[in-house]
């Protein structure tokens, strides 16, 4: 039982990071109808930028913020100069996947070429630990949970209380209709990619903080659980992605605790495959949204 409680606690911590990444991924899909597989490598980029900053003495949280913004900027540019033009030209969905996978591969190996293949670490942030009943979480883990909660709440406020947020939701839901209502969908897309890019960057640094050490495969390793969370929750639905992240995080850790820990990642993979094959719209995707997922 002790093991399960610990697993749940760890699961919440992992789940928080997965949720953070999943929400960004989901927003990008919602706005542009693109499954951006480059997202993984962008998280890795963020982790390494954070590493450089921390090694120069920058405070960890400032480093996170700066890396997040850097990746946000890279994401907007990436969408603007490569992805959006390809979509405009009628590039088919499978070709877009190949493009984003290729771009991710290029970015990942550029990072290797520059930073080398060996493991890196942010080092101990603080020796402080937190105790909840039988559960012990490190400072980093708790901090990330808090950070995720704050960012999710901020996103919620943005989406529901601001004009920008409403414009984003409208563009996500029906781009043509949004445009005919006078919304500058192109600019809204840029802003959405910047925000989701920042979430991607934040997730990358968060991953680096919560793992003991990491290397160039960091983003690639965690991308699939994030996609699983996003799809489970209903792709394009940020709130679904948050819940999905928690579910994936907790179930992975509990499964690893009760059976073979080598199969921890497989839980997320299998959930993703099953959701896609059985109920592609996920838990909270509206029935109409499945038209985005089905052919013809």
């Amino acid at each position: 039982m002790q093991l399960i409680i610990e697993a749940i606690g760890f699961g919440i911590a992992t789940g928080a990071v997965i949720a953070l990444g999943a929400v960004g991924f989901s927003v990008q899909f919602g706005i542009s109808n693109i499954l951006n597989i480059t997202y993984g490598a962008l998280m890795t980029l963020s982790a390494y930028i954070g590493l450089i900053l921390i090694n120069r003495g920058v405070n960890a949280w400032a480093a996170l913020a700066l890396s997040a913004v850097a990746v946000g900027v890279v994401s907007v540019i990436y969408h603007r100069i490569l992805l959006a033009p390809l979509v405009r030209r009628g590039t088919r969905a499978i070709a877009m996947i190949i493009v984003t996978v290729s771009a991710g591969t290029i970015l990942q190996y550029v990072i290797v070429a520059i930073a080398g293949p060996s493991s890196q670490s942010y080092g101990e942030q603080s020796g402080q630990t937190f105790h909840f009943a039988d559960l012990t979480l490190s400072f980093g883990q708790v901090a990330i949970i808090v950070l995720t909660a704050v960012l999710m709440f901020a996103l919620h406020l943005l989406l529901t209380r601001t004009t920008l947020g409403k414009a984003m939701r409208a563009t996500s839901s029906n781009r043509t209709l949004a445009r005919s209502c006078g919304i500058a969908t192109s600019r809204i897309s840029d802003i959405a990619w910047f925000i989701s890019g920042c979430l991607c960057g934040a997730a990358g640094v968060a991953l680096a903080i919560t793992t003991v050490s990491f290397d160039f495969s960091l983003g690639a390793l965690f991308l699939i659980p994030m996609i699983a969370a996003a799809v489970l929750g209903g792709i394009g639905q940020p709130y679904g992605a948050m819940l999905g992240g928690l579910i994936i995080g907790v179930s992975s850790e509990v499964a690893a605790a009760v059976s073979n820990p080598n199969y921890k990642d497989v839980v997320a993979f299998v959930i993703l495959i099953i959701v896609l094959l059985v109920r592609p719209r996920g838990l909270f995707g509206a029935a109409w949204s499945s038209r985005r997922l089905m052919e013809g």
Partner: protein
Amino acid sequence: MAWEYYLVVMLVYLGTDLLAVWGLNLEFGVAGIANLAYIVVVAAGAYAYAVVTLGPSSNLGGFQTYIGGFTLPFPLPLLVGAAAGAVVGTLIGLTGLKRLRQDYQGVAMLVVSLTVVTIVSADTGLFNGTAGLALIPNPFANLDPETARWTYVALVAVCCLIGFVVLRRFTTGPMGRTLRAMRDDDVAASASGKDIVRLRLVVQAVGGAFGGLSGALLAGFIGGWSPSAWAYIETLAFLSCIIVGGRGSDRGVSLGTLIIAVLLLQGVQFLPQIASVPGLSEDFGWIILGTATIAFIWFRPQGVLKERRPRYHAESSSKLPG
């Protein structure tokens, strides 16, 4: 004579790459099936070849554990490899039957690929886990090394020849036409009386057989096979050849394979050495591959040699073009 050995390696790799690319082109280029898990059928062929040639584990000191453990005579293990590829290809095909949007299909296939390699790496009883299998016997071990090497090249060449003949049966004529129709619009193809499900499974079995044979030939040549050889990203290398060369065209993708092979091998040699990072050429290889793929999708999505359709002329309708 290092260059001679180098040439042998190049030729064997080129031949096995061609087989795999032909198989994936049949599935993706011609039939429109987004099988981004293709590398799994190559691995299936390699592992199958290994476990039917290694013999029982105890014979080799018992340091690796695996299923199977037979010793079939040449050339049966190659056929077993192709068959394993066909079976695994069909199984993968079954997961793709639900009509998902192509990019979702692609992601699902990447995840299938990743799941399989994770499970095989973790379960040491299957194929010896992360360490993989070693000491796979070479069928020409009884010959002197240089003859053995070149005999292997001849073997690969023969397999390619036979493979190409079989390939053309599927990519040309009425079958080739029907598969491309399915690729262009599977609903309309269905409405035209085509059994899409059956066609897809057949294509994935045949494509899988090509991949399995490719893997089997590699395993026999290298003498080993491990999860590092079939990370889920490896399918991207084959896709590169297809996209660069000309999707849907057998000549095109063959040329694409040659181009990518030359580009990778020559390109990395001319790049400056950065620090002394080991494995750098492999990393640059992926950078080159990724860039070439995106460049072609951007500038020339039909590839270098685009797919050509037969032209018919009223006067000579009795003469069918090639």
